[in-house]
């Protein structure tokens, strides 16, 4: 069947193999063709990371059991196909939250490790893989290896962020985050431009567990980078209203409505996006403190709308996310100028301040500023993004492998200085390149 990522671009056909237990994955490995195989979770990567043209793709979402719960340690042992959505449904009522969540809870644990995802708490908690005690990896030789930061760390840090190219992640032990309530205490600040936003984040980001800014990439001139910054932390029980205190860990994560199947191309154009952004900015409070929000509203606003990726029309969209190190604020400014000048419509541009990086060889976050924005596929976009990449590389930055569907391979090599170490590990555990993907072929990972 034909597969794409969340951006719905560049579909390729593959044989989809449901995996219910490790034996299914081992059988698929034994029956491999020269086109190889790849594990796929909920396919929320925006690009071709979970595709394998002409080969096998293992559907891991059918292996989604909780195998063990360690109460004193707040650790869980799960199969890789379980989603963060399911983990929240199971464990929030027990007082545990997932250690890291991206903007959607519809990702699997295996995918979270393979993309080494980050969330609004990166500046204090790092990436998802930093909360993994160990994982079981089916490698090309048919062995299942238990690896972690202390057990074969090279293979572990090649697998964390390794986009599924070292093997099939079967199980993992994850450290959860104890919470007293399911509400987040949120502070909201509106900032008139990029500089004031960066200053505010630099000075006060450490006071919050979670922070992210929505930024208007359409506004130009003095208003460029105007933004709505939301920051928060989980509420303590006594901070809840009396009614909420009766059921402090109440949680319901449900999709409220679904986007229609067909959207006309061009629905999102510079005019509609500018109008949307204007309304969003105006409706946000200038400054608000200690507002209580639900997990869904604070972390996953878009999960309220099923299949929202369809609004970009049949040609799909690209999510462009890059990071530039601290000290390269000017590069961020120039990139934003270039984007707003190009007129390529984008709402939902998001700016975040990253904390320390980790040893993951292809892990995306480095200390610095990251910007993510959606852009519908239109003519001329390739040249614009190539130009932005050059700016990002010159600043010592990089783009995110779970999102990028089009970076120039030679520029990619410059973005990830540990790529050769990653290739060394792959040569060791998978000399024939059995595990592969469209992404791997496109960038010669």
């Amino acid at each position: 069947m034909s597969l794409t990522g969340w951006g719905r671009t560049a579909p390729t056909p593959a044989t989809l193999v449901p995996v219910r237990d490790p034996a299914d994955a081992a059988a698929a490995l034994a029956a491999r063709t020269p086109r190889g195989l790849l594990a796929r979770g909920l396919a929320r990567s925006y690009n071709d990371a979970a595709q394998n043209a002409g080969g096998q793709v293992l559907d891991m979402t059918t292996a989604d059991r909780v195998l063990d719960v360690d109460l004193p340690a707040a650790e869980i042992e799960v199969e890789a196909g379980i989603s963060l959505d399911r983990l929240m449904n199971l464990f929030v009522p027990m007082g545990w939250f997932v250690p890291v969540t991206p903007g959607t809870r519809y990702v699997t644990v295996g995918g979270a490790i393979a993309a080494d995802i980050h969330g609004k708490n990166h500046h204090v908690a790092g990436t998802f893989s930093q909360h993994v005690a160990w994982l079981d990896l089916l490698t090309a030789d048919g062995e299942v290896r238990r690896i972690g930061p202390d057990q074969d760390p090279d293979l572990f840090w090649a697998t964390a962020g390794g986009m599924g190219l070292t093997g099939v992640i079967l199980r993992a032990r994850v450290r959860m985050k104890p919470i007293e309530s399911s509400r987040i205490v949120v502070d909201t600040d509106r900032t008139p431009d990029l500089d004031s936003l960066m200053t505010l984040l630099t000075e006060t980001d450490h006071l919050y567990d979670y922070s992210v800014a929505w930024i208007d990439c359409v506004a130009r001139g003095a208003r460029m980078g105007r933004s709505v910054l939301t920051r928060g932390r989980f509420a303590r029980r006594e901070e809840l209203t009396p009614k909420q205190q009766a059921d402090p860990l109440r949680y319901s994560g449900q999709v409220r409505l679904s986007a229609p199947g067909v959207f006309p191309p061009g629905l999102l154009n510079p005019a509609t996006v500018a109008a949307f952004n204007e309304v969003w900015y105006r409706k946000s409070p200038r400054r608000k403190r200690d507002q209580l929000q639900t997990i869904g509203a604070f972390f996953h606003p878009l999960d309220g709308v099923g299949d929202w990726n369809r609004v970009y029309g049949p040609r799909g969209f690209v999510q462009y996310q890059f990071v530039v190190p601290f000290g390269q604020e000017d590069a961020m400014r120039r990139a934003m100028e270039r984007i707003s000048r190009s007129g390529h419509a984008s709402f939902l541009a998001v700016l975040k301040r990253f904390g320390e990086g980790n040893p993951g060889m292809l892990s995306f976050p480095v200390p610095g500023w990251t910007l993510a924005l959606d852009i519908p596929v239109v003519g001329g976009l390739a040249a614009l993004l190539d130009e932005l990449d050059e700016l990002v590389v010159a600043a010592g930055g990089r783009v995110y492998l779970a999102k990028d569907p089009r970076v120039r391979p030679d520029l990619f090599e410059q973005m990830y200085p540990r790529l050769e170490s990653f290739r060394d590990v792959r040569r060791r555990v998978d000399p024939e390149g059995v595990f592969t993907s469209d992404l791997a072929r496109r960038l010669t990972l």
Partner: protein
Amino acid sequence: MIDALGSVGSLLLVGGTSDIAVATARRYLDERPLRVVVAARDTPRRSAVAEELRKAGGRVEVLDFDADDPGSPARMVAGAAASGDIDVAVVAFGQLGDADQLRTDAAAAAHLAQVNYVAAVSVGTELAGRMRTQGHGVIVALSSVAGERVRRSNYVYGSTKAGMDGFYSGLGDSLVGTGVSVLVVRPGFVRSKMTEGMPDAPLSTTPEAVAEAIVAGVRSGRHTVWVPGAMRWVMSGLRHTPRAIFRRLPF
């Protein structure tokens, strides 16, 4: 892999020394570096083309291809795929022949059919097989408006292109759903080394314009393009012109 925005990572030029093939490679290399496989007979021109494309930023590989040799297409396609997937293959080889000689020389006519049709069928079949395994790829077939309605002045050449055009159009339809597609390109009179010394025809074009149409056609996923675009409507008219009138037309 052809990426989400239509950028190409590897290009196979079959008949890689043709002006249109070279112009297409150069057009792609203007956008970004890529792997280019030049398949052609071992001639000084091939070395010169390889050098030119290397200078333009290509990672160039050179392969032998001879349209007269029935074993050549299979070897060439296997060789091209040995170092990675083929994203786009341009089938650009072909000869014009001497229309006067072809009228009376059966061996020359059969040879032209071998090169322009038989070898093209063989190459297309090999490429399609390889790309079906890959699960992706685009075959660009350089046809000609001369094949759309064969005219008396060059009917041997025209008939070979008619056959080739029909083959690749049908091949494209047969590949729907496999991830592989075919783009049939129908240029009018192209001013190139193949037509050197011939008088210009109306709506004539250049290898660069054909290359531009190929890149745009691949990017937008089209199945047929005419170069220049207006040729489509001209040919549509000519296709429906009664034979008694068509054969009296001055070309």
